[in-house]
């Protein structure tokens, strides 16, 4: 089974409080914030590795990022991916979901044949959840989102559980297909020192725009239909009242307020 896993390096949320807004350019200041594998993408990789253990085949990760993302790709290889492909080009910078999906889908066409493309359902930083379904649309493949279980059946058929509001649907679907995984699907494995050493031996292939046949204009900031009109930090409330006194006095005041508001 040939499986492609889309891995996105994202800024480590532990450092998000250091994010700033440049008052002049209205762009985000993110210098010095380390990257991690987007947590749900890590689960997608884990799901791929488990399928490979059962069905055989190969797991290749695909990322679109600056070359500073290398350590994150190494982590994917340490986890057990066979090969890592990095799409890196200044021309890709500023791509919105449509442009990102277009570039990723074009790379995936070059990687054919494949059975399964796995993604995380959303990323920590953008959280648009668009890319997996958009890759599927560019490739004209079926897809399912919020996937919490994948079971390979005979002759390239899968049984997939997809979470919907307050429940799930169990779906029979044929490869090739795109699945984006939800939190519930698995707990990713730990990486040992041995794994890290093995990962170091594996190949990271870097493709630039020249390596892809990008015939449509949807590339980079200029090729992105969505634009940011402005960026702002939500306003804090102006009048905050902090209650004084010991806990029992505070409780009394709060109970009194709730009473006067009609809650008791």
């Amino acid at each position, binding site marked *: 089974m040939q499986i492609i896993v889309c891995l996105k390096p994202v800024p480590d949320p532990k450092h998000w409080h250091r*994010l700033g807004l440049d008052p002049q350019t209205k762009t985000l200041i993110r210098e010095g914030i380390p990257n991690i594998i987007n947590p749900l993408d890590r689960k997608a990789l884990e799901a791929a590795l488990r399928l490979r253990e059962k069905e055989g085949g190969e797991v290749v990760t695909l990322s679109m990022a600056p070359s500073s993302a290398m350590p994150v790709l190494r982590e994917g290889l340490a986890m057990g991916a066979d090969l890592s492909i990095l799409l890196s080009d200044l021309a890709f910078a500023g791509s919105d979901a449509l442009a990102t999906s277009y570039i990723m889908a074009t790379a995936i066409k070059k990687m054919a044949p494949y059975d399964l493309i796995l993604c995380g359902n959303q990323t920590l930083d953008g959280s648009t959840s668009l890319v997996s379904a958009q890759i599927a649309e560019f490739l004209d493949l079926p*897809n399912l989102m919020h996937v919490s279980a994948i079971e390979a059946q005979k002759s390239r058929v899968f049984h997939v559980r997809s979470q919907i509001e307050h429940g799930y*649907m169990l*779906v029979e679907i044929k490869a090739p297909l795109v699945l984006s995984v939800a939190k519930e699907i698995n707990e990713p494995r730990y990486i040992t020192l041995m794994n890290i050493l093995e990962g170091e031996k594996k190949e990271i292939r870097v493709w630039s725009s020249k390596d892809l046949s990008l015939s449509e204009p949807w590339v980079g900031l200029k090729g992105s239909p969505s634009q940011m009109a402005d960026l702002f930090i939500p306003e804090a409330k102006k009048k905050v009242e902090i209650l004084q006194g010991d806990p029992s006095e505070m409780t009394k005041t709060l*109970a009194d307020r709730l009473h006067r508001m009609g809650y008791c």
Partner: protein
Amino acid sequence: MAVNKTVQSKIWVFTEQRQGELAEVGLELLGKALELAHPAGWKVASVLVSHSLENGLCEQLLSFGADEVLVAHHPLLSSYCSQPYAKILENLIREHNPEVFLLGATAMGSDLGARLAVRLRTGLSAHCIGLELSPEKKLLAVVPGWGGNVLARIYSPHTQPQMATVMPGVFDMPQEKKTTGRIVAVEVNLKPEDVTYRILETKREAIQEHALERAEVIIAGGWGIGSKEDWQAVENLAEVLHGMVGATRPPVDEGWAKENQMIGQSGRTVHPKLYIGIGISGEMHHMVGIKGAEMMVAINQDPQAPIFAQCDLGLVADFKEIVPQLIGSIQNYHKTKQKDDSDLSH
């Protein structure tokens, strides 16, 4: 009989239904779309994809104020499948050229919206928590980023339609009124092979769709609660205040609270009259979900917790020294009130 199949509406709202039941977010968006469209001289269409015309859904949408209900129907459309849905809607959009196309940021809406945006090569603002129409009639969608630490206004000025998916519960349900709109029914062509997957089983809990989104009182707990045993305090306070329980991400991960109780960017967007946050630090990805709270009370030991910069009323204290006593006081008020009521009835 001559049937007018021209759709005049400039804002289209995809109205999601599963098994003949309309998702509330489709109605919330209809209400908001009407509010944006009418001052601009535009009409609003609710768009339905259905296997039948006989289920009363079109009439229901008209009663919520839709100027037009556009319904694409075919017997093969009894359950959702992204590819045929996207194909049908793409054709309708290309034929009638709406300016704006809105969907709920639900499992179905996120999937369908993403595919449609590719088919139409247009921008889509995902998981919006606000919508505005600029004087130039461009859709500005407010989107939280970086866990809600920043908000962005996103637009797609050069492509059509301008698309957005909006979080459920952000907008109020519209009032039902006298029906003045009309139904445009389109029978679509579909082959069995267009349906690219087969649903073997669907399970849904029979719970009220947006109970938390509609709650007037919400008591929410965070990481600071500390344990499953202590979580009971949150439940108890909610009970005496006839409120519902909400949570931040950590209590859900720890198993103290349920996934559907999570409030915030990756959870629910709520607007209660009263919100009491206990042991919640006030990270933006939670706060973005409670922006609509009228009265926000925070109980936290840490005076530096960011929630104290955003609440209306702050109690810097260990919740264990507050909540049990607070429950007692509330119960006393209830008893006094019952006594007063029974005295009055004598």
